[in-house]
């Protein structure tokens, strides 16, 4: 694991990186196979430029998210991105993710989880597949839990090509009563049961590294 202190712009290739970001805006230029962890960072803008034949897994985890965030992902040819973001909101927020598939043979998987405790949590995903492109795959999997606040999701896939595989799944709901009752029946209090379920939800698209860091109260780099 490489731990890097970065600001503004960075080129990353072949490796796993936990980034500590010194600025509100960040541009990452991805070459070959890269995994990025951004834990409890407070970015306003993130631009991801996928070079041809690159592969990125990115995990963005914020226990409490206060900001608005614009993400722009650019893919041209033969690139693959698995974008995972998970956060809990204690105030209004707007997350906008724009993904541009401009060439051929790209794959984009966007997984976002949000728990809204207070205020309105707005998530807008725009995946744009350009005209005359082929063999692109676009998947949006966006889930929210209204836990006192409200989640609003706009899952958009704008396809100008005749050959693309595109799917989107969006769910917004509250905690499952059966699941709470099940945990209560094991002798777990209502508060602990809800905490377990909410944590389980926001970790569900994260990997074990994020979970272990967050449990230790670390910020990453």
């Amino acid at each position: 694991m490489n731990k890097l202190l970065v600001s503004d712009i960075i080129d990353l290739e072949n490796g796993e990186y936990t980034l500590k970001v010194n600025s509100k805006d960040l541009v990452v230029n991805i070459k070959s196979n890269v995994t990025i962890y951004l834990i409890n960072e407070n970015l306003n803008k993130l631009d991801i430029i996928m070079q041809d034949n690159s592969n990125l897994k990115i995990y963005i985890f914020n226990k409490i998210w206060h900001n608005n965030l614009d993400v722009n992902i650019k893919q041209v040819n033969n690139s693959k991105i698995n974008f995972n973001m998970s956060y809990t909101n204690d105030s209004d927020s707007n997350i906008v993710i724009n993904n541009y598939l401009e060439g051929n043979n790209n794959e984009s998987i966007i997984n976002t989880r949000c728990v809204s405790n207070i205020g309105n949590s707005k998530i807008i995903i725009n995946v744009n597949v350009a005209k005359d492109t082929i063999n692109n795959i676009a998947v949006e999997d966006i889930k929210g839990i209204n836990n006192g606040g409200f989640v609003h999701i706009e899952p958009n896939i704008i396809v100008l090509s005749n050959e693309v595989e595109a799917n989107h799944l969006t769910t917004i709901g509250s905690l499952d009563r059966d699941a709470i009752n099940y945990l209560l029946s094991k002798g777990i209090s209502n508060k602990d049961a809800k905490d377990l379920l909410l944590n389980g939800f926001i970790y569900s698209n994260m990997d074990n590294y994020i979970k272990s860091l967050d449990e230790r109260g670390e910020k990453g780099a």
Partner: protein
Amino acid sequence: MLELTDVNLYINDKVLFDNLSLKINAGEIHVLMGKNGVGKSSIAKTIMGDDTYKVEGSIRYNGKDITNLSIYERAKLGIYLLNQTPTQIEGVTNAEMLRIALSEKNGKPVDIFAFNKELENACELLELDKSFIHREINVGCSGGERKKIELLHMWILKPSFIILDEIDSGLDVDAIKLVASRIKKYYEEYNPAILIITHSSTLINTFDNFIVHILDNGKIVKEGDKSLANTVLETGFKNINALNNEHLL
């Protein structure tokens, strides 16, 4: 240990049971039998504290009135329900859930080393792969695995009153035998009271003695010993009222 006295049970203003009384002493095994839809699972859920049901009358556990206690409070007293379709909990592992439940039960943090060892030993006993310890609760599991996972939870939490609600449904012959033998082992080690709801003989015949209650039309219509259960399993419920009293207690 557990005593239901003159319990009227309703769901959505529909009467399920009328003046139901049932007494289960410590260390006793009782079996509830009856046709599908007669309300056996409703009794199980009511004892566990499911607030879907409206209850009149009294439910006492170890002398304490628990009629208005929550599911959590009843579980803390040692009441445990294993049901036929255990819930799946995404994002929460068996170890996480059990660690919290155990620390609540004991009133102190668990000793992680001893806890892990106990989990591994229980998995071995239940012939359950140890990887299930850190897997999400019942997610992606077969029917047999789910029942073993519920037994794993029971083994760690050590309840004193266990309700087995058709835990043998959907299991193959070998799986039923394994589940039954492990429940018997738990019974021999910890001597809990057990209330079994079943339509099959394998689980109940694991035990030498038990008391059977046959339910019909919102009432207990017959009570007896092991031989009554086996007669019903052979002849069905339709002639239940014609049975003579040789099985009765």
